């Protein structure tokens, strides 16, 4: 079952900057769903118009493909430290 990431952690540590972000992505899901439903009629119209050019199928399947790609981001982790004693750090985690 494809479960999208629900939490993003971001930390940027530099000499004059210290940013810590902990954001529950699940808050955005209803908004994204509402936006997708609003766009649906226009997407279907675009699919109908573009079908014979070959891009209609792409447009139709782009939404599910984007969702699959977003779900696949779950578990992504990037941790970069540099400078002496790791004084600069960029950390991104999606869970």
């Amino acid at each position, binding site marked *: 079952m494809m479960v999208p990431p629900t939490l993003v952690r971001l930390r940027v540590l530099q000499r004059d900057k210290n940013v810590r972000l902990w954001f529950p992505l699940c808050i955005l899901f209803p908004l994204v769903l509402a936006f997708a439903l609003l766009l649906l009629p226009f997407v279907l119209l675009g699919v109908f118009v573009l079908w014979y*050019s*070959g*891009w209609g*199928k*792409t447009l139709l*399947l*782009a939404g599910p*493909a984007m969702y*699959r*790609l977003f*779900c*696949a*981001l*779950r*578990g*992504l*982790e*990037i*941790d*970069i*430290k*540099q*400078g*002496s*004693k*790791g004084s600069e750090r960029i950390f991104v985690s999606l869970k």
Partner: protein
Amino acid sequence: MDDNKKRILEMLADKKINVDEAARLLEAIEAPMSGTSGRDDVTHESKSKPKYLRVSVQPNTNIETGADYQRVNIRVPMALIRAGIKLTSLMPSSATDQINEALRKKGVDVDLGKMKPEDLEPLVDALSDLEVDVQAQKENVRIYLE
């Protein structure tokens, strides 16, 4: 029924061995069989599909104390790579032809239209034991699947 077990039961029926000896022989042939299947299970578990591609860059222990260094740890879910390949199947043939032509000019002879996610599975299975370990002057680079 296993041939060995049949032979043991036939010897018991012919009274060449008694019941205790038959029981011991049956236990003896069953023990390596269960051990083998257990080992197969362990092997199968250890060979389970890798879930992440890890890239790790660690500073060499030889670097001077206080010197600048870079430490990188990246974990990419294999599902992301599979999803990326699935995206190529959405592109219409006119677009893939142009991309293939551009790649061919750069010396990369690949057909994006024929790439399928199921083609990736044998490659991932084969690469599950792959480990790239590069030890440079200032840092060690490691790439592996886990």
